[in-house]
């Protein structure tokens, strides 16, 4: 029991008795985790926006009038086999007209006269694609099938937008990774410095006959605690900050197409990630530095 409690007790005492060093390490953790959190929030939301735009881009396929129901069934099967196609929804002439009328709101009522046999519209497929960048490719493949009159998707503009969002998100991800590496480097270095000031202490412990594990364990707990304490403020700021921004923007960025990531459970996932990052970096930093000094003494 003593073996388990001791490192924790000593770890706490270590933080308190080397307060200045502990505070500077905690600050390093805080600042970097805050930046990581900020960029993560941006990247995740860009992804969210890209997804929501992508899901709104569908391919609309009009079928020639002379294709009968069995032919439509065959066509549907053929389309489903195309790579990247997630869903093929059949919408017959009447559905199409309803949709058309609806889209014009009140004024659409004048088109009611086309109901029934006079309906000039075509039977259609509404196709969902796995990723935005597949839309063009899938469209081209559908276009050459027999019985297809016309293939339509949001056009080049929609594709361009998705492309831009994707590249912005990718650079965000790269930034987060670079920042993550920088954070680990910075925190490890700060902890290294704080432990360097206690190199003498580590050497004495070994001289008295303490095993490496015995010397190391309180420092590891100290590192974990520093990482943990350092992650509290960034987490609180992320949760309340993001909640505030999300609510004041009504969950969207500028237009309703750009939907932001809902606050929950996103902020919880973010918090777990930040704690994990802080704690593991603290642990790693302590481990590396203490082990290094242990090797220098016999």
């Amino acid at each position: 029991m003593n073996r388990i409690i001791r490192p924790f007790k000593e770890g706490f005492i270590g933080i308190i008795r080397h307060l200045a060093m502990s505070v500077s390490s905690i600050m390093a953790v805080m600042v970097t985790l805050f930046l990581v959190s900020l960029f993560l929030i941006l990247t995740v939301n860009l992804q969210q926006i890209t997804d929501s735009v992508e899901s709104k881009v569908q391919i609309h396929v009009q079928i020639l009038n002379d294709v009968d129901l069995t032919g439509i069934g065959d066509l549907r099967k053929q389309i489903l086999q195309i790579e990247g196609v997630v869903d093929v929804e059949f919408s017959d002439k009447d559905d199409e007209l309803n949709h058309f009328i609806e889209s014009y709101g009140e004024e659409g009522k004048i088109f009611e006269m086309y109901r029934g046999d006079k309906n000039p519209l075509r039977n259609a497929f509404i196709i969902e694609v796995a990723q935005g960048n597949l839309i063009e490719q899938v469209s081209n493949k559908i276009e050459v099938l027999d019985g297809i009159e016309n293939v339509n998707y949001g056009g080049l503009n929609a594709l361009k937008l998705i492309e831009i969002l994707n590249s912005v998100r990718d650079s965000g991800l790269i930034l987060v990774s670079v920042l993550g590496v920088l954070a680990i480097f910075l925190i490890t270095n700060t902890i290294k410095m704080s432990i360097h000031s206690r190199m003498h202490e580590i050497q004495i412990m070994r001289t008295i006959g303490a095993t490496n594990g015995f010397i190391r364990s309180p420092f590891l707990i100290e590192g974990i605690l520093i990482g943990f304490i350092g992650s509290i403020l960034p987490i609180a700021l992320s949760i309340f900050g993001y909640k505030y921004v999300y609510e004041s923007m009504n969950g969207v960025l500028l237009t309703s197409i750009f939907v932001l990531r809902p606050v929950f459970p996103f902020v919880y996932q973010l918090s777990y990630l930040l704690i994990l990052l802080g704690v593991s970096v603290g642990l790693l930093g302590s481990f590396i530095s203490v082990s290094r000094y242990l090797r220098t003494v016999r």
Partner: protein
Amino acid sequence: MIKLSDVSKTYKNGVNALYNINLFIDQSEFVYIIGPTGSGKSTLIRLLDAEEKPTKGNVEVSGINVGQLRHGKIPYYRRYIGVVFQDFKLLPSKTVFENVMYALEITNMNPLLARQRVREVLQLVDLSEKSSHYPNQLSGGQQQRAVIARAIANKPRILIADEPTGNLDPQKSGEIIELLERINQEEKTTILMVTHDIGIVNQYKKRTIALEAGHIVADMVEGGYIQHESNHSTI
């Protein structure tokens, strides 16, 4: 108990510290090691403490080949010997009590028994009132006694003391020697004491080994220091 056979030590920077030392010290002996600065006394302690490896020869303590000990095994060996360091080596961020306690904690001793033992040794070295002080709040002599308390807390088989009276006035020095004598007699602890203090060597006569320039120049079993006409005035 302690057996050095043909031990030589040359440091990496080329300094020769010891030449072909042959030495045998039996269990429960009390031995002074004297010699001028740079005569190899500290090197001898470092070899016994497994801090340094001999360049040549064997250092054997209780059948353990100290020079061949693996890095991970050294701590276990050190619990078996107690060292009173000249530079104290007290942990600055721990109180006197915690410093002594640390030497027992590393052996995973029952905390209750350990605390009791700490109080016991602190009383022995007359530091009970200073037990909650930090090392930098103590005088040199008090730090010295704290180090002795730590070195003996674990009841080591061998106690190596590097200038344990260096910072003490003659009266306190005498008390320390008497304390070491008591440990030597009651616990049958082998004691190796490095000293400059000719007064002590002559007053409390023990086997005395004199080192000079890395050689053993005298091994006086009957003890006492014989003044040569030559260059021993620096001792």
